[in-house]
């Protein structure tokens, strides 16, 4: 009922119906989703990401039933075979099938992308919520820590941690998120500060709501839009950072295929086998482009400040 109310209902509560001019009241969420659906480029980009995610999830099935190659299987008879009927997108120096490796590489890129963004939203959101809600020395302490983390050049911090931990997909996500959460914490804290002293907070507190309830049921929903926008705008940058780390040799190590380490490997042979350098780069580019376009659409639809 609430949020779906018609003019008649509003009249019952004593609101002047004339000022609504016959427009049904709708919730923020349904209105934002509607706006997102109306953005054709954004929707197309969203479906592209969804498609890539499905491909990534189905990678074992694809390599078994579609390409019939294992991503790490070497075949010295097809070293540097060009794109064609045998190997659709060519093969590398040990005869591994590029197409199959790209499909498996999508697991790394998208997996790390989504996991990292989740980690930094949850952790950064939590820190921002606590800092903004409690204020005082808690706030000072947490935000000073954020200042410190963000003061270290991110790429150096990634490299420092990568040589310490020799990452797999999960630890790599944690490494990238360990920098990204700072920005989210600042955003959420700002949002919490603008809501915390409103009358409804005082009213809820006077009804006996606990701190945890105040934070989770009343502050979090208000901070959710900026978190959603930050998350969807962040994925593209994370995928780029992950690919760069793989390329430098500080991310996912061979033989596990990732788009970044495929490019790193291609550096040696690209003068005669151009497909090795073209296709992984195109995959990164297309994925990041789609993620950014979707992120922009989400921002346009959800950011309350753009209204």
């Amino acid at each position, binding site marked *: 009922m609430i949020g779906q109310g018609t003019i008649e209902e509003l009249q019952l509560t004593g609101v002047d119906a004339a000022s609504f001019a016959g427009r049904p009241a709708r919730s923020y969420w349904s209105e934002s989703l509607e706006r997102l659906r109306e953005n054709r480029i954004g929707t197309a980009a969203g479906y592209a990401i969804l498609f890539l995610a499905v491909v990534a999830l189905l990678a074992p099935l694809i390599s078994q039933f579609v390409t019939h190659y294992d991503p790490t299987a070497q075949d010295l008879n097809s070293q540097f075979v060009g794109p064609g009927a045998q190997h659709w997108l060519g093969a590398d120096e040990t005869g591994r099938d590029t197409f199959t490796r790209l499909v498996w590489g999508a697991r790394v890129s998208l997996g790390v992308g989504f996991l990292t963004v989740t980690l930094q939203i949850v952790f950064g959101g939590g820190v921002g919520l606590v800092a903004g809600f409690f204020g005082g020395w808690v706030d000072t302490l947490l935000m*000073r*820590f954020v*200042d*410190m*983390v963000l*003061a*270290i*050049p991110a*790429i*150096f*911090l990634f*490299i*420092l*941690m*990568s*040589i*310490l*931990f020799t990452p797999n997909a999960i630890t790599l996500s944690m490494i990238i998120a360990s920098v990204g959460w700072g920005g989210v914490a600042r955003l959420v804290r700002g949002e919490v500060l603008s809501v915390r002293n409103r009358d409804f907070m005082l009213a809820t507190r006077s009804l006996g709501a606990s701190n945890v309830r105040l934070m989770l049921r009343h502050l979090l929903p208000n901070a959710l839009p900026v978190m959603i926008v930050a998350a969807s705008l962040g994925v*593209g940058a994370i995928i*780029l950072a992950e*690919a*760069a780390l793989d*390329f*430098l*040799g*500080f991310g996912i190590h061979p033989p596990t295929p990732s788009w970044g380490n495929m*490019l790193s490997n*291609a*550096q040696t042979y*690209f*003068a005669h086998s*151009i497909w090795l*350098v073209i296709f*992984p*780069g195109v995959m*990164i*580019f297309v994925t*990041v*482009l789609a993620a*950014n*376009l979707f992120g922009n659409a989400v921002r346009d639809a959800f950011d309350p400040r753009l209204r």
Partner: protein
Amino acid sequence: MLAKFIVRRALAAIPVVVGVTVITFVLMHSTAGSYVPGLSLNPNMTPQEIQLLRSQLGLDQPLWIQYLDWTGVAWVMQHVGLGGLLIGAHDITPGMLEGSFGQSMVDGTSVTSQVFDRLPNSLLLTVTAIVIGIALSIPAGVIGAVRRGTRTDHLLTGMSVAGVAVPSFWFGLLLILFFSVQLHAWGLPFLPSGGVETPFTGGDVIDRLAHLLMPATVLSFVYLAVWSRFTRSSMVEVLSQDYVRTARAKGMGDRRVRYVHALRNAIIPLVTLVGLELPGLVSGGLVVEVVFSWPGIGLLAYQRALAYDYTMVLGIVTLATILVVVGNLLADVMYAALDPRIRLA
């Protein structure tokens, strides 16, 4: 007023720097504390020799003493008569207080001298990239704003959206593939694929520019994409302002209104945006430096990290962070000098 502002900002920067040294130090030594490079390569080392090596590197001291020694606090403590508190310490040095951020575990070279040797190369690359970015993004943004909604505008917007999504290392590889490998194969003049100058024979201005061209182009690409969009939206906003209409109403020509009145106001926010890139002056080019073997700080950190030269990486990260914090401080002071509103906030 300004002096007070500077002091306040400088004091606020101190805990950040101290915190960063603690974070990087703990991170490094909690996992790599007893590691000595080369040890695993030499199985014939006796325990006594290992002990001697670790003692020389200072790794046999408690962690907190290693930290105090590294930062120079231990040296100060010794000289004010508190040396007795440093149980188990030996060979205390002034550390950071004399500008020493440690030495390489692999070849014993000093972090500070290595970093400052490479700093000019890194700055040359990033500053050139920023200059190219500004020089191209302002015209691109203005054209987009003036011809809003036309095909030119859509093309420019599309290019900037695509520009953000291109991985810089891939773009660099493609440039090398065409301008170095392919042009060379065709027997045409080609661009060098790496380094700052041709060894032995090169080193003149033309040679250095040829080496700079590709890495600077790659690095400027992202700046260009972001700043041209920003200039466009800022310009669109300014063009709808009342004073622009007034200027036009009094009979001023389109050109003069756009390029004298509107543009000047439109690029003020861009100054802030460019200022935000100052921290990137030191570290921003790492990936590009690696692709083009550009001997800057990024390449140094990359090579030392691959060699597991922990103390060197730790020193580079700390020194680079301090440079960033100092750079930010300078930028803040500059803004405050330019804009009185910031000083009072």
